[in-house]
């Protein structure tokens, strides 16, 4: 089902972030964009998979339109999650933006190798961070044509 650019609609974004602080910041940034997004936050990769597969307590979980993934995760490593998502035939269409603090070249390469759709380094500066989030939002929800559900 396609979405016209002008239409406002509510996008579902899944944020995989173990640091609650960071999650909070991201949410703040998201709120600032004033876009109609519904952001779900999971704290680790395992839960992320459960959410995506609608397992466990996430039986009724909606299919997200965008996944924001932090690589540095306990339990299941971000790269593993990425790999899992991108190999799952049902989930691999969902765009994944790796949003992480690491600027390491190898991380970048690894992420792209695993078919991440985008890799963004989280800046320290809040203002910048908010700008980036807005950009992500703008781009991925409004500009890009997302695959239908």
């Amino acid at each position: 089902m396609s979405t016209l650019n002008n239409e406002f609609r509510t996008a579902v974004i899944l944020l995989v972030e173990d640091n609650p602080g960071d999650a909070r910041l991201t949410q703040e940034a998201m709120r600032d964009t004033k876009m109609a997004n519904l952001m779900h936050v999971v704290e680790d990769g395992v839960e992320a998979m459960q959410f995506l597969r609608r397992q466990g307590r996430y039986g009724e979980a909606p299919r997200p339109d965008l996944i924001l993934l932090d690589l540095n995760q306990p339990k299941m490593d971000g790269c593993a999650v990425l790999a899992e998502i991108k190999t799952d035939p049902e989930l691999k269409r969902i765009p994944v933006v790796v949003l992480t603090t690491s600027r390491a070249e190898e991380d970048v390469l690894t992420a792209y190798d695993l078919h991440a759709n985008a890799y963004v380094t989280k800046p320290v500066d809040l203002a910048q961070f908010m700008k980036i989030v807005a950009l992500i939002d703008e781009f991925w929800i409004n500009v890009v044509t997302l695959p239908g559900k």
Partner: protein
Amino acid sequence: MTQDSPGTASGADASAELAQVRLRLAEAEELLNAIRNGEVDALMVSGARGEQVYTLSSADRVYRLLVETMREGAVTLSADGVILFCNAYLAQMLGLAPERLVGSALRDYLPGDDQRALEGILANCGTAISRGEINLMSSAGALVPAYVSAFEFRVEEMNLAHCLVIADLREQNELRQILAAERVAGSIVVPAAEAAAVADEQGRRVRASQAAPRCRDGGWLSKYQAQTCVAALAVVTGAMVLAGWALDIAALKSVLPGWVSMKPNTALGFILTGIALFPSAPATLGPGLASFMSGFTRLCGLLAALIGALTLGEYLFAWDAGIDPWLFAEPAGTVGTSTPGRMAPDTALCFVLLAAAREMARSGGRTKNTLLAAAVLGLLVTIIAAADILTYFTPVLGAWGWWGETIMAVPTAAVFAVLGASVLWEAWQKNVSMWALSRTVTAGFALGLALLVVAGLTASRTQEQMRMAKDQEVHSETLLRQIARVEAAVASTQNHTRGYLLTGDAAMLRSHAVAEAASKQALDALRLTAAGSPTELAQFSLIRPSAEESLQWFRQMIDARRSGVGIQPGGVRHGEDLMQAFRAAVDAAERAGGERLLQSKADAQRLSQFVYAIIAGGMMTSLSILIAALLWLNQGEAARNQARAQLELGQRAKAAAFYARSLLEASLDPLLTINPAGKITDVNEAAVRATGVGRAELIGSDFASYFADPAKANASYRQALAEGSVTGYPLAIRHSSGKITDVLYNASVYRDSSGKVAGVFAAARDVSELRKAEELLIATEQRLDLALRHSGMGVWDLDLIHDTAWRTLQHDRIFGYESAPATWGQEIALRHVVPEDREHFVRCFQEASGTGLFFLECRVIHPDQSIHWIQAQGQVLAYEEGRPARMLGTVVDITLQRAAQDALEQSARSLARSNADLEQFAYIASHDLQEPLRMVVGFVQLLEKRLAGKLDAETREFIGYAVDGAMRMQGLIEDILAYSRVTTQAQPFASVDSGEALQEALQRLAIRIVETGAEVHAQSLPVVMADHAQLVQLLQNLISNAIKFCKDRAPNVRVEAVHEAKRWRFSVTDNGIGIAPEYRGQLFVIFKRLHTRREYPGSGIGLAICKRIVERHGGEIGIDSAPAGGTVIWFTLPEEKSP
């Protein structure tokens, strides 16, 4: 002359003086006239010095004549050698006119050397005649050898003069040369092994070698003397007999009355054959005449043969050719002649044979076989003649010869014997050199042959006789029988007559008639039988009349009775008397016949005995002769074989000797034989070369004198003599040029055939090359030894078949042994290897058998239980049946190296570990450290945003510092991360185009460059060995700095590279603020800043990172001030490694 007389004053004295003067004048005139007329030979003058004699030219004439005509040159020389007089012969010798010679110096006609010789000769004339040979030079330039006799004499108080007689030696020299040549030729020809003879045109033998058969010397006549005599004999005999026939002289025809005469044809034949047998005329008579004569003689011979052949034909085919009486006719009934005037068959045969023999000897004289045939024919003729002569002396002489034909006359046989012998001799002489059998053997064979022929002839002749005797016997028996029959018939007639007379029976009459007829018949038969022989006929004529008389009387009586006339009273008695007489005659005849029969029988017996004797004797004799000849032949053959064998042996020995000699000469080692006295007796070519002394000199010299140390050489020689041999004795031969050659001397004693020591045979082997090689080997071994000792390498040589090993002491030391263990091998080595490495050990050996190369590193246990690492390398040297048989290699103790290696490995590992740790740390830093920072910064800013209106400026300032601090923290963390990554994320060097790296760096700085309006210039930058990412970072940092530290103007950056030895020196020049020299050292320290952050941002890690990168690349980095006031940062990077 007259004495001087003093002068006088008076005129009388004057006239007396005048008269005396006139007288003297007249004397003088007389004298002069006498001299002029040649009546005076010499003058004797009494002068003041006494009497002197002068010979005058008239007397001189005789001498002059002598001198001029003699065949030598005569010359008189003055004391200084000028020719005063010379004779014509000398002038002729010199080829000049005598007038020219007189007055010139004799030495002008001599070549230089001869001038001196002449002077010598002249000087030697003293009292005796001096002689010598010199050469004169004729005007034509030819050298004339001459013999000079010189003597000196004084002439009238004049100076010493020389008189020379010069004999021309040219002719003498020529003769001398001829003689010398003759001598040489003789010396060659005479001892030649082959038979050779040299003859002049007359056929005289000039020279013959020793081996040439003795041929007759002398001229033509003497050579053929014998033959001529024989031919003459034949001709004369023939002529005499013909004369006898012509003149009818019986003595010439048949020598003795009872002998057979020589027939005219025979005589003619002898004449012709004699002519034919004359030897060929000498060539001196001229070729035409010679050939005519030879043709003529040949024709004569052929004619004789023709006569003989015709006669033979007459005999064989009983055909009368009419040649018998053509010369003279012979009356029939002559002794021993079957057909009058015809020659005996054997005579004819002999003529034919002779002619044939002569033809063969003459024409086919070259071939051995024809000569042989001629000889055999001659022999046959002689044999036939001899056989015929013999028959004259044998008891079987009958009137007839062969087949009852004419016997050969005695003179005929004699002449034939001689002719045959001469032909045989001639052929034999010509052939003797080609005849291999000795004369004795040949003569024996000939004799045997002759005997055989003679025996055969005699036997055939005897057989003839025997037949005749037999016939005679039969005849005699027949006669006797017939006589008996006559007697019986007559007796029967008598009986019947008596019977009739008594009885008057008609039957008796008839019987009487029958008996009478029978008597007559018998008488006729007897007559016929006796007809052949006159004696028998005579006897028959005795019997017949009495028989007939008796018969007639019987008839008469019967007739008388029949007619009735009575019988006379004395009739019967008459008849009886007649019968008695008849019987007596018959008895006589029978007796005679019986005697003849006995005679015949006896003859036959005798003949047969004779035949047996002949046959037996002849056979035996010829057999024994043949056997003897065979034995002789065998002996001769044996001797020949022996000689041949000897020759072969000699030749083989010679060849062997030659072969042996050539081997000795070919040997490259000097070989000598030395006699017991120490002198060299024989050398080979190599010995001559080695000593540089000629063969003749070497032989006989002391052998020790050719060695550098003669005493040592002698010692070796003595040792050889004492022990029988000496080997490998080191000596040094001294060459005549002084060069010394090291040799090994082998000598052994050799003995002669009686076992006595004959000397020492020595061989020397040049070992100078060997010595050099030995020295080289020793040197090489020394070096090897030294090298091994200092390198601590051990060497091993493994025999894989027997599993034994040769090894150096160092090898054993490597295995922990101070002294060499008794045995070693692969198995023993394996036992020393630690158990874990044993499999590897075995595998390495297996690999080696495949590749041929062996490499092994393993641990071994020393006897003191310490473990050492060893490295062994080797190579398979020999294979046997596909498996390696021998391996040679080295072994070295690498425990220390190994330990070092291990330590290295360990440190490398720890380094890797620490690097990994560092990386881990860096990773953590990049994530986990930043997280809290973000929290701080983020929420503080969030707070600031939330409380935007509620906060005063001071509070906002505090928040600002807090945020700032956190931000800075984050930057530092990032910088530290980058700094550490220079090593942890170091990539291996590769060829990197620095120009490309620069472009990449500029791309990264694109925004800044645009913002500041900076210009970056770079010339062509080289390819360097570098880590690409790090080079980019390096350039980026440097250019970023150059742009950053620029005030009030657009930054201008220049990047250059200059090639230095094996590296490139890059420089980044800016037009920025520059750096004071005193601060330059600090700049590369991490985090060191020269300006506050307010002035120029940055953590201060940029240059530290640059330094780390450059140092990691093995280069250097530094700062200089640029001329325009800016800064030049230079650094070096290694150049691209050429492949």
